[in-house]
């Protein structure tokens, strides 16, 4: 049995420490040089309900979580019935001895049950039953043969700074006691083991929201105004946590309309400003998006998608806003849309969005989702490429250029590229007005005469031509030629890559992947890449195949099949492979 990789799931009620324990063990594994990928599954409530946290730990790069579980930590009986079917044969379930559990189905499924006196041990050794969580961590390390020192380090860091040395020491005692007991009883019975990787380079554990916020900060973002909304809030919270050190103005506003318009005001006078929200909040911001388009203000908006319509499934994930953000707001104006697919791409989107926004003086939307927002991924140093960050402010006139201006400044000068050299308010030679009405080159508004409109509207839209040429085309993963080409965008990258790997392992040359991160304007280079595909299967997390429609509208290429997921749970390789079988069955394909 493979000892290089295993998946652990923690499950229980909100408030039982499912997420904090899971994230703690993830950190310990990352410190041991292992790669980790996590997926959290939780409900929109503070206490109760049913939550789970999945960790995939491997000595190879883990790009996504998998559906099967080797070790289940069940914090209540429901966790067993809910997740029993996910545990592989020979896998095990750790439970507290005092918990009444249905043993028969566990046995029937060929699973092992590892009862342990977690609560008693926590009370006896640590002095508090709350430390049951810590006992569970110790037990997990024991059965997987994982070096307890890494877990101890995380416990020290987690408790030491917040609750003091005495609390940390009590927790360490509990972890050690549980480690010994569980090791003695079950260590030999659990076949999957975690070994620390010797001399592993320093790796970093973070989620897409953190990466996006960090990339934005590196890219000069010093202003965020937002209204809290799951799953976007942690972008706002991350920048706020770093506000003092990096002089970031961070402002929680009364609503999303105020959040986006405040960001427009800040961007207008020259700050790199953003707002982050989810689809419902984005809906409210739509009018202001058009304002930024007409006023040519470089605005960055993050839409962390969750399933809709309306309030939908607040803590789940989705890709259902694509066509909405592509068309949101009345009339026509240039906008750019980026959809990063993993932690590295979130970091890149963070600074690229600002460069694009300032180069084209128009709004840029970053489309992420609940999955990217909350899944922790271990990355290597080169996946947070600070060295590649460039701050490109586009055609921005500095004070010296303005001092030497001979003619009156025309903010909206008609140019071939559509980009007019921009002056920030505050210079004596560049006093101008910026109207949301149609306006002249000098900003005078209510300029509705035909000739002026025929100059200004095409001027703005011309920006899209240059942008289309510089948008990154899809990245190819897998062999250049394949029987089936999977097509995806944004957050499903890891799942698609692993699905392609599995297909090629069983039949070399059977599949490859074209993954899009730059969605709008639709990259000019996409057509060539798509032309080489024989059978095109679009995979996305919405019901109607929004990307497939975009693809067809922009390239004329009609995808052969569509695999969708709308249950709010993130795409996995297993889900793709399962659905690919059905696709192949229907068309009688030999491909997969």
């Amino acid at each position, binding site marked *: 049995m493979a000892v290089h990789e295993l998946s652990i799931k923690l499950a229980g009620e909100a408030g039982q420490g499912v997420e904090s324990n899971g994230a703690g063990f993830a950190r310990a594994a990352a410190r041991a040089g292992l790669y980790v990928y996590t997926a959290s599954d939780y409900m929109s409530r503070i206490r109760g309900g049913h939550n789970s946290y999945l960790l995939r730990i491997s000595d190879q790069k883990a790009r996504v979580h998998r559906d099967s579980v080797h070790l289940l930590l069940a914090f209540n009986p429901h966790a067993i019935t809910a997740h029993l079917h996910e545990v592989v044969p020979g896998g095990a379930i750790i439970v507290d001895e005092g918990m009444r559990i249905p043993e028969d189905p566990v046995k029937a499924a060929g699973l092992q049950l590892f009862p342990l006196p977690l609560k008693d041990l926590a009370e006896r050794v640590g002095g508090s039953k709350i430390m049951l969580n810590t006992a569970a961590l110790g037990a997990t390390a024991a059965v997987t043969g994982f070096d307890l020192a890494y877990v101890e380090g995380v416990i020290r860091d987690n408790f030491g700074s917040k609750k003091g040395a005495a609390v940390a020491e009590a927790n360490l005692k509990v972890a050690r006691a549980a480690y010994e007991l569980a090791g003695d009883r079950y260590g030999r019975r659990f076949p999957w083991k975690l070994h620390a990787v010797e001399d592993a380079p320093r790796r970093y554990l973070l989620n897409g929201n*953190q990466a996006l916020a960090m990339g934005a900060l590196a890219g000069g973002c*010093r202003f965020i105004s937002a209204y809290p909304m799951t799953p976007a809030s942690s972008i706002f919270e991350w920048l706020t946590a770093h506000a003092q050190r990096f002089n970031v103005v961070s402002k929680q506003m009364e609503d999303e309309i*105020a959040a986006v318009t405040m960001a427009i005001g800040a*961007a*207008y006078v*020259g700050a790199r400003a953003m707002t982050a929200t989810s689809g419902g909040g984005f809906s409210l911001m739509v009018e202001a998006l058009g304002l930024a388009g007409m006023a040519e203000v470089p605005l960055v908006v993050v839409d962390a998608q969750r399933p809709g319509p309306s309030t939908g499934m607040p803590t789940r994930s989705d890709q259902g806003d694509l066509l909405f953000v592509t068309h949101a707001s009345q009339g026509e104006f240039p906008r750019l849309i980026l959809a990063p697919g993993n932690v590295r791409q979130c970091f890149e989107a963070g600074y690229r969005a600002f460069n694009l926004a300032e180069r084209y003086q128009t709004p840029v939307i970053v489309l992420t989702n609940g999955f990217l927002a909350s899944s922790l991924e271990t990355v290597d140093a080169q996946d947070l490429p600070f060295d590649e960050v460039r701050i490109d402010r586009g055609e921005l006139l500095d004070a010296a250029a303005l001092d030497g201006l001979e003619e009156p400044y025309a903010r909206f000068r008609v140019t071939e590229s559509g980009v007019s050299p921009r002056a920030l308010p505050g210079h004596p030679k560049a006093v101008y007005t*910026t109207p*949301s009405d149609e306006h002249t080159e000098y900003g005078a508004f209510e300029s509705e005469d035909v000739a002026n409109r025929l100059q200004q509207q095409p001027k703005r839209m011309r920006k899209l031509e240059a942008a289309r040429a510089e948008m990154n085309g899809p990245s190819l993963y897998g062999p250049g030629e394949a029987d089936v080409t999977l097509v995806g965008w944004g957050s499903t990258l890891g799942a698609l890559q692993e699905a392609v790997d599995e297909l090629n392992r069983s039949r070399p040359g059977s599949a490859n992947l074209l993954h899009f991160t730059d969605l709008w304007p639709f990259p000019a280079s996409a057509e060539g890449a798509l032309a080489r595909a024989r059978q095109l299967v679009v995979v996305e997390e919405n019901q109607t195949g929004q990307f497939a429609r975009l693809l067809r509208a922009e390239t004329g290429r009609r995808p052969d099949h569509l695999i969708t997921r709308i249950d709010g749970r993130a795409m996995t390789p297993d889900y793709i492979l399962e659905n690919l079988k059905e696709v192949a069955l229907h068309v009688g394909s030999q491909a997969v």
Partner: protein
Amino acid sequence: MLDLKLYKSENKPTWCPGCGDFGILNAVKQALADLEIWPHEVLFVSGIGCGSKLPDYINANGFTTVHGRALPVAQGAKLAHPGLHVVAVTGDGDGYGIGGNHFLHAIRRNIDITHIVEDNLVYGLTKGQYSPTSAKGFVSSTTPEGAIERAVNPLALALANGATFVARGFSGDPKHLASLFAQALKHPGYALVDVLQPCVIYNRLNTYDFYEQRVYRLEEDANYDPHDPEQAWQRAHEWGERIPIGVLYQESGVPTYEEQVPALAQGGPAQRPMPPLTEAEREALLAELV
């Protein structure tokens, strides 16, 4: 004092002859000239409506935004560039109706902006519907039987939420109005100047005559103390035979929002250079992720 001609725009106002907005425009120019604020040092942010066209008719930085949103845009500009004098210009519908929530929160935030509300008690640009400040019973195209709601009392609303500067002016008295604008511009914090401004086309009730017979200047009342919240509250509710204009209330010594933001200690983000992160800064960020 700077020359008033400095603020002359090349664009000719499209307001109706006799519109109260002319008085406001002239008074604003006078206040800027008196305070020696140059056109490039001030930013007017407006919403949508007749009065919101004002930035186009004055030589100064201007941003006409969308309906109701002047206040958050203005606050964003001020927080990003505290060196600018920022003036939000809204109408009564714009400021108290669609933008009512922003009004409420701008008051309690106390960001150093001046908020001028051209309050004509009717919707002008959409041709005569009742507005949040129209009197109960006001007959308009959308209230043929008379408005059922009570009117919003912006002065009382501002006082109740902790505004540090609350004033009312009358566009028929531009000299007095200019002095109110100047005081508002000088006030550190959010300053509201609600301006009674006749709409000569759609409001046949609140005319120049109506106001001229009723308004009186608070500063001419020797007993009035604009630092006394109780007196201010009382006068904010005075509407009928006598209508007060002037500074109703001013609270000094209250720190502005931006003075309390550590990130703004060295100026706003729009005023600072944008260097890449230093090696030490990157390392500190990465250390959090291990």
